[in-house]
């Protein structure tokens, strides 16, 4: 079978979808991010039906499908326990820092669900069950990265 590319040059075109987005954080998420920014506190909220303490807080519980409201909010962390982790070796431009660094799912003290964030160092001590503590950034803008990362406590 002859290849058509022997007869005509195979062209490719470069393109990019590059668009600005402005995501509404909403009332629930704004309370959480403002507390990170202004008070260096990690807020959670509790489902009135099943009692699950969610962090980040939720407007409604996905399991009970009920509104959570603003009554039962609490502070969780800043310490917690690593329940899963990975050390990242392969770099890509969307990562907030250079490799190697680690992602971890952290069970913050007082919360019932895991919280995904980053660890910048201390790999030799990193294992599931290790205690960690949130370290806040100096410049904070109301983003999840206002927590600069979690540090391993010996």
């Amino acid at each position, binding site marked *: 079978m002859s290849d058509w590319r022997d007869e005509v040059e195979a062209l490719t075109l470069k393109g990019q979808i590059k668009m600005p987005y402005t995501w509404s954080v909403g009332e629930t998420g704004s309370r959480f*991010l403002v507390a990170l920014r202004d008070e260096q506190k990690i807020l959670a909220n509790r489902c009135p039906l099943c009692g699950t303490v969610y962090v980040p807080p939720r407007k409604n519980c996905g*399991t009970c499908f009920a509104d959570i409201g603003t009554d039962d909010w609490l502070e969780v962390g800043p310490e917690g326990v690593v329940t*899963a982790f990975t050390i990242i070796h392969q770099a*890509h431009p*969307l990562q907030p820092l250079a490799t190697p660094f680690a992602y*971890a*799912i952290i069970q913050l003290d007082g919360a019932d669900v895991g919280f*995904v964030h980053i660890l910048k160092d201390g790999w030799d001590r990193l294992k599931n069950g290790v205690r960690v503590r949130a370290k806040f950034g100096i410049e904070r803008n109301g983003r999840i990265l206002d927590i600069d990362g979690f540090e391993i406590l010996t």
Partner: protein
Amino acid sequence: MEKIAIVGAAQTKYESRKADQTFYDMVFDVTTAALEDAGLTLADIDNIITVSNDFLDGRTISSMAVGEAAGAHDKNISTVEGDGTFGAFYGAMRVLGGFRSTLVVAHSKGSEGNPQFISNAMFDPIYHRPLGLDTTSAAALQANAYLTRYGITEEQCAQVAVKNHGNARHNPLAHQPLEISVEEVLRSPKVADPLKLLDCSPVSDGAAALIIGNEEIARKAKTKPAWVKGVAHCAEEYFLGDRDLANPKALRDAAKRAYQMAGIRDPRREIDVAEVYDAFSYMEPLWLEGLGLCDPGQGGQLTESGLTAMNGALPVNPSGGVLSAHALLVAGLARLIEASLQIRGEAGAHQIPGVKTALAHGTHGPCGQSHCIWILGES
């Protein structure tokens, strides 16, 4: 449930870069080939389901690129965005709901976009996307949770990669047929602990199509029908921290309902072959646990014991699986097609002898958040 069957199918060869074909070309090729496989013409096809994703295709309304290539001119058509098994599920419902036949076609070209940017967009823009998470790093968290929970070893995961890449040597359409050792997998470059390069599926270009028909169409088609005995899907929570990543409960639920529909009581004995969505090596044992084909924590031993090998009691991924060819969206449809070929006895060099009941599995969402299970039978 009324009787419906997969009566024809086609796949492209899976490759790292199909520079000579547009989406339209690939979809046209597999549509034509699926019709030919079934011995049907476009006039026998009542409606079309395309499967595509706007992020992968770099195009809003990505289905626009392929409708005519799929033969949809003057026909009813719709588009599912997700794994091909979900598109096939909708296609099956349309046959059960009044059409005689549905052609389901999926395509993707990983080579034309940036997989990390595209998979990062699956994560929540407020809480997770800024962390830079992508499919692979999230999977690494799941692998860590699973391996630590049960003491499953990286060697056991590597055995899956060795087996599936080895099986792919008997599948001429596979992207990465490889003869490799456990040592080579373990020594391959680290990607995200515990995942090494050879624990991860490649990103492939490819397309696949299948035809689902009612009994009338099954009689008309020249192929041996692969009857749909059971099918179900289910999704679990979205946030990784809300989930028990080592316990795929949505998969359990979908499997339970699919088995119930198919009248399967003891899946381990009754299923003759399984094609599961092993995007990463650890996923094969984890999904086999979720499918109830072994007890929780026992998945790691299955490859070592030879149970899941081509000549084992429960061959898993004789095609080479997703580890050997991973065109996103297409990969689940490919599992379903491979299962149908096993029922037909036409899987060529990777045919398992005497298959009466076959299982196909697709996943969608980070770390297998959503699963779709199909049980096919020869009668």
